[in-house]
């Protein structure tokens, strides 16, 4: 179980607990459940790297306590 911090920089900052083998899509769903948006509208980025939905967090090497930027489309 890892905890990932997703920051909007507009006031929304969530800490999401998830597994390492969860996909980014699942993470987006969890974020949506916590923030109340539509998960399809969420875009997770790190600088200019957009995290794709079908890849796991482990493969992206997202570990416990890492921050991810939260955007919307």
């Amino acid at each position, binding site marked *: *179980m890892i*905890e990932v911090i997703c920051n909007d920089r507009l006031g929304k900052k969530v800490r999401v607990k998830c597994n390492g083998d969860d996909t980014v899509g*699942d993470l987006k769903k*969890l974020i949506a*459940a916590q923030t109340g948006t539509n998960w399809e509208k969420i875009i997770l980025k790190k600088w200019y790297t957009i995290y794709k939905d079908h890849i796991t967090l482990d493969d992206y090497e997202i570990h416990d306590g890492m921050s991810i930027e939260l955007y919307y489309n």
Partner: protein
Amino acid sequence: MSENSVSFEEANRIRLSLGLKPLKVGPETSSTQIAEDNMKRHREDEAKRAHEDKVKSRIAKSKNKLELNKTMSGKGLGEASDDDDDGDLYKWTMKSRKKEKERQTAAAAKREKELQELDDSYQAEYDEDHLAGLRVGHDMSDFAEGEERILTLKDSTILENEEEGDELINIQMTEQQRLEKNLENKKKKNRPVYSAYDDDEFTSGKKKNLLSQYDEVLGTEQGNDGFVIGKARKVNRGGAGSLAGPSSGNGGLTAKEIMNQKLKESAIDLTYNKTQQAQDYYTKDEAEITFKKSKKKKKSRSRKADNWDEEGDQDGDAMEVERPEPVDISELNFVDDEDLQASLAKARRLATKKTIKKLTPEQIAKNLAESKTMEVEEDFSERGGLVISDVSEFVSNLASSSAVHAAPARPTQATREDSPELASTSSPTVAEKAQEDTVMEDTKEEAEEDNIRSRTRAESEEAEDIAMKESKESEQAEHEAVLAEEPLVSRGLGSTLALLKQKGALEMGNAEQAERSKIQSERAKWLADARLREARLAKEMAQAKARDKDKVRDKNYSIRDRDRDREHENQRREQQLLDERESRMKNYQPDVKLEYIDDSGNRLNTKEAFRQLSHAFHGKTSGKMKTEKRMKKLEDEKRLLSMSSTDTPLGMASAFQERQKAAGSAHIVLAVGNRNAVPASLASSTVGGTTSTLASGSGLGTTSAAPARSQPSSFSTPSQNAQATMSISGVHAPNREKVAFGLKRKAEAAPGSNPEETAPKKTRN
């Protein structure tokens, strides 16, 4: 920024609701974690090993110590010995020498024992069997019976040793062999290398290298001869059977003999069967032998292949059947080889027979069936069915068109140019004739076109109407002119407008424009009304002023009151004005139309307007050529407008009409030279009347004789009208010499003068 986070249970609940697996609790078993575990384990192992080693070393140390201490056991030097108390020096020395000797002998004995043991061990292992399988590099024949030779291992490279194994040679024997070979080579060198027969290559099977005559045997080559030591058979044979045969295992044959055998096997038999016919195609066996192709897996095309195979077999069978026929022809031939001739003849016969096709009964039936079907098809095509071809279509079109043509055309303006008129003209000169020809053609074409047009119009009407109109108009046609009239300008503005419209110079506005103009007129009216109102108001104001002046005299009406009243009045009036303006502006739609006009008053389109603008802007107009072109274009347009709308530019139709009247006949004789004159008899009847004049060569209309000339003639009014039109249309024409077709009117001749005196002269203008 407040952090939003959920508890573990909450997170699990959310995950389950989304359909994800619950959170995994505990440390992550990621790859890094695994690596850490491995590292730990590795370190632990190392630690353990180190510990063990230490313990072992400690044990060994202690053992060593013990052993060392053991040697230290016994009496020391300093301590007194047990047996000798006296301390006798002689005895001690004798004892010590004895001890020394013992020690030495003991050591020697030990050593000898060890050596003996070693020797025994080696001796015991090595016997005859150990030699089995070793190759010997010499021929068996080199070793004589009972001879003792020492064999040593041959030098070889590591790779060769691995491949071939050990080889035993006798050094002296090898040296001897080498020497012999070298001597031989030297002898050979003197002989020429080339011999005509290259038998060696074929017999020995070995290809000789280049410059092989200089090869020297160095003793490092691999020898082929030799033998392998075999296992000793301890049966009665003894050592005799311990040697095996030659190394190559050929069963006692030399290389040459082996080669021979091989060649014999692969030899090709050159004998052939003379009587066998030479066939063009391979038999199956021959084909297989010559073209050995790896058979690939046949797919499910077997059906087709089978059919072909069957046919092929059939053919083959048929051929084979024919072979054992009696040979009678051989008796006729007197050539030597009878068998050959026989076979040739057979082949010839077969070839001729093949050309004749044998019709099997099935084949015949099939042919019949095919022919029957063909006949049936032909029958079908002949009867019944609709045949559409170019010819049929054309004919049908003609038929339909001729039917329409039967219904007479409604007399429209442009259809009066009938062919009889054309036929009646006769041109005075050749040039005129040529011109007229072309013009005639044009008019003919026009007439045709108009006919077609009229036909189409007629089609759209009902037959009854056509018939009625026909009857009516036929009556009118007699009175109307053949040429359509152009409305006279002198009649009035209406007729002028009609003329312009006919010519196409007038652009009639469409509905939109009409609406626009309506709106504009309304607005203008409103403006006018507004002005009237204002005028009225002004009058009222003046009246009010006058009234006020009267009121001044009233004492009770103070100045303040007056001012107040005036203010009120003004306000009210202004309000009224504003209201009116507002009501008018409610549905105000500005209708702007930009029109550009050049210097001479022509309306310009956008392109020309822009050109005007750019000329003004840049300050320079077009050059000479351009302006001339433009002028020419404008002139042409004007001339186009001034052309007669009902007649050709040359006024051919009217000219023909006049000619017709002058001649009194419907036809026009085209004549060349002086013979184009109107006959004198006719001329007399017509000279009094106005004659049609044609300004030949001019593209404009004709000028008619002075109206004063017109005398009461048998001509009907239409002719006058025609002339009048001609006068109008010929407004722009310069006063040319008036020439009739061949008739030159004498200027101011007496009315009653003899017309015969007027010599028919032709003039060319």
